[in-house]
Each structure stands twice: as structure tokens, then as C-alpha cells.
């Protein structure tokens, strides 16, 4: 139980630190900043686990694990899952989610309803859907998945590997082209 409780505390500390960071300064690479904050909480978790008693001073004997290392590793796994599958995904959705942005645009529109043409123009704070598409293309270049060559985008080695991996998985799982 100690590992689980410390994981929960570590996760809350992480999201609190991220919130304070994002509110205090303008961060350009937010996902990377979140990752650094998470990584900073890992030694904190390990230190807290090593320095606190097995029962945290109040847990009943039945909840104290005899395998301290396994319990600590389990807690660390939970902490990582809460970050990578939880907080980081919340950020990704809020920052990059296409469907979510459409829902928010409709929600924020004066009449609470939008036509497809309205949405096309209003998308992403009035930047339009073409902007979203260009942002994705720029993202591919900055991530090193594609490079510009004579006004054309060409897959890099890294991009080719990603295309083969994801294309293979999509074919195997019978997933069509996403809209």
C-alpha cells in the first residue's frame, strides 16, 4: 500500500508543479517540460520510499508489504502510468485534440451552435482548419520524421521506420485511413 500511496502523492505533486510552471512562465515546449517535471518527481518518489517507514507510521500490518523492492517498483509503475497515460494525455488532448477543439469551438460560440463552414473558419481560435493541418506538417519536420527537399516533404529514415511500423499495425488491425 505504501508504494500506491506514494505514487498517488507523487502524481499529485507532479500535476501541481506542472500547473504552477505553466501559470508562472510561458513554456514553448510544454510536453517536454511536463516530462522533465515528471522525471524530477521520480527521485523524490524513490527518496520518499527509502526514507519513510514501511507502514508510513499509520498503516495496519496487513497492508505492509514484505517485498519492499517489488512494492516500490509497483508504485513507480503506477506513478509512470498516471503521468504518461493520464496527465500527459490530458495535455495532448487539450492542446492538439481535433475533435475536442471542435466541441470547444461549438461550446464557445455565441449561439452555442455552428455550421460546418463557421467551424472551418473559427477552428483553433479563428486560425482555421488549414492552420491545424500546416501545424501537423511542421510537427513532422520538427520531429525529424520528414524533411523538405525541393519544396517537397520526404520521409527521413526515422519517418520511414515510423511509417512502416504504424502502417503495418494499421493493416494488421484492419484500421482504415482516419478522418
Amino acid at each position, binding site marked *: 500500500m505504501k508504494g500506491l500511496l506514494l505514487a498517488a502523492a507523487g502524481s499529485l505533486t507532479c500535476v501541481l508543479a506542472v500547473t504552477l510552471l505553466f501559470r508562472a512562465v510561458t513554456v514553448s515546449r510544454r510536453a517536454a517540460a511536463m516530462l522533465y517535471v515528471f522525471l524530477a518527481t521520480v527521485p523524490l518518489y524513490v527518496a520518499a520510499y527509502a526514507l519513510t517507514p514501511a507502514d508510513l507510521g499509520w498503516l495496519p500490518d496487513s497492508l505492509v508489504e514484505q517485498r519492499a523492492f517489488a512494492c516500490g517498483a509497483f508504485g513507480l509503475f503506477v506513478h509512470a502510468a498516471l503521468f504518461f497515460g493520464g496527465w500527459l494525455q490530458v495535455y495532448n488532448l*487539450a492542446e*492538439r485534440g481535433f475533435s475536442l477543439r471542435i*466541441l470547444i469551438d461549438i461550446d464557445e460560440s455565441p449561439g*452555442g451552435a455552428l455550421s460546418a463552414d463557421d467551424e472551418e473558419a473559427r477552428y483553433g481560435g479563428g486560425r482555421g482548419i488549414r492552420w491545424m493541418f500546416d501545424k501537423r506538417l511542421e510537427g*513532422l519536420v520538427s520531429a525529424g520524421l520528414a524533411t523538405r527537399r525541393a519544396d517537397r516533404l520526404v520521409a527521413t529514415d526515422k519517418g520511414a521506420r515510423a511509417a512502416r511500423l504504424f502502417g503495418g499495425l494499421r493493416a494488421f488491425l*484492419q484500421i482504415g485511413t482516419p478522418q
Partner: protein
Amino acid sequence: MSADLFGTALTSGAVWTAAAVAGHFVIFHMVQVEHRARTLTLLFGCAAFATLWTCLLLDVDRWRTLYGMSVVACAFLLYMPFYYTVAASQSVQLVIDIHGAPDGLSVEEIRARYPVDEILAGRLETLLWAGYVTEMDGRFALTGKGRLVSRPFRAVKALWRLGPGG
């Protein structure tokens, strides 16, 4: 309390999680699944239930059973974003298209492949089908379910000062 019960619970969770992932690959490969997210959620739900059943069978106490089920829950948290990256990411689709073209693609060619009005129409249709929006006279409004998603994320965007995004 036997130390083995802790390991038993975690192992049980890990084994049933592996079974859920294997089941995902087998089912999706063999059958054209319509409700993909629901099917995947169901598979992990079954894995959690199977972990519970295994722990009950092996006389694992309730707290350690909970640990085993936590393993399944955490794996679900990690697996779903991975699955959605494979299944729905536009960036992934773009890199597949660029890689598939012998000389790469120009921005104009990419735009021609993905007309924004068609992309938007497709996504609105999906949102309509999933019950997040409703349509009246060519205008889309949020349903209760849509607001339930939109409002918390508006709050997160405000709290983290994320800007419009998208």
C-alpha cells in the same frame, strides 16, 4: 501475510493484461470491428474481472487483489493512447502517405489529398454518430455528453494557459 500474495496479484494482473492485448490483436485482425474503442475497453474490463476472479480463486486478500486490478487499469491507461496514435493520428497518416510516395509529397499535394472541408465533415459525422453533437438545419450544437467533455477541458486549458490549440 504471505509475501507471495502480492506477487500473485501483480502477476495475475500482468498476465491478464497480456491476454487482453493479445485478444485485441487477434480480434481486430480476424474481424472488422465497428465499435473499436468500446471493444478495447471491454477487453481490458474482462482482464480486470479475470484478475479479480483469479485472486479470489487463489485466496488473495482484497487489498492485493486491488493491486492486481490496478496493474490492468494502469496498462489500460498506457495502451489506449498508443492505440489511438496508431488508429487516429493525422500525423501518423501523413508520415505514412509521405513515405508511400516515391518522391515525397508537396504541401499542395497533401492538401489535395485531405480537403479540409471533407476532413471536418468526416469528423463532425463521427461526433454526431458518437452522440457528442446534434444537428439542426445544418448547424451543430453540443449534447449533454458533448458538454461533459468540453467543459472540463476548457477548464484545463484555462488553468494551464494553453491557448486555443487544436
